[in-house]
C-alpha cells in the first residue's frame, strides 16, 4: 500500500495552481513548454546585454537618453523574465487540463518598450 507520508512518497509538486488538478500531459508538450520558457529567458538576457552595452559603451548620447535606454532595456528584460514564468505556469496548467493555451500577456509590454527605445533612438539620431 503506498504510504503518502513515507520516505519513498513523491514530493508534492509546486505550484499547486498548476499541479492541483488535471492529468500528466504528453511529455513532448511539457518539454516544448519548457523550451518556450528558456526562449523567453534568452530574450531577457539579450535585453540585459543591451542595457549593459548602452551604459558601458560611449555612444554619443546625452546622459538622460542613455540612462533612459538602460532603464527601458532592463525593464524589457524584467518583463521577459516575468513572462517566462507566468507563461510556463499558465501553459502547463492548460496542458494538464486540456484547455486552450494562453497567449503571452507581457509580450505587449516588451513590444511597447522596444518601440519606445526605437523612437527615442530615431529622435536622438535626427537631432544629434
Amino acid at each position: 500500500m503506498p504510504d503518502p507520508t513515507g520516505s519513498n512518497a513523491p514530493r508534492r509538486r509546486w505550484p499547486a495552481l498548476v499541479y492541483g488538478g488535471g492529468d500528466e500531459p504528453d511529455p513532448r508538450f511539457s518539454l516544448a513548454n519548457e523550451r518556450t520558457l528558456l526562449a523567453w529567458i534568452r530574450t531577457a538576457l539579450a535585453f540585459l546585454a543591451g542595457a549593459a552595452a548602452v551604459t558601458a559603451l560611449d555612444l554619443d548620447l546625452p546622459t538622460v537618453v542613455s540612462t533612459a535606454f538602460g532603464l527601458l532595456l532592463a525593464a524589457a528584460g524584467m518583463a521577459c523574465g516575468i513572462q517566462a514564468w507566468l507563461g510556463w505556469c499558465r501553459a502547463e496548467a492548460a496542458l494538464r487540463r486540456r484547455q486552450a493555451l494562453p497567449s503571452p500577456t507581457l509580450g505587449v509590454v516588451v513590444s511597447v518598450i522596444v518601440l519606445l527605445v526605437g523612437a527615442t533612438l530615431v529622435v536622438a539620431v535626427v537631432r544629434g
Partner: protein
Amino acid sequence: MNGAGPADAGLQEERTHLAWRRTTLALLVMVLVVARVALGDASPLTGVAVVSLVTLTVLAVMAAGMRRTRFATVSSREPRFSSVLRDGRLPFAVAALVVMACCVEAWGVLQRIA
C-alpha cells in the same frame, strides 16, 4: 496527432537538454557581467566571493536543468522521479535569477548617473 508518439519523445528531450545548456551558459555570462557592474569599486576579495557564489549558483541551475529533461517520460509516481525537480521550482528559479539580474543592472544604470 500524427501518430509519432513516444518514438520522437527522445528527440524532444535532447532539444530541451540543449536548450537548457545554451540558456544557462548565456545566463552565466550575463550574470557575471551584471556582477561586474554591481561590484564596481568593491574590494577584490568581495569581488571574488560574489563571482564564485554566483557562478556556482548558475552552474547548479544548469546541472539541474539538464538532468531534469531525462525524467520527462518517467511517471511522477516512480520513486526516483521525486529526486528530480520535475515541477515549477526550477523554472521559477531561473526566471527569478534573470529578473534579479535585470534589477541589479537597472540599479547599476542609476548608480552611474549619481
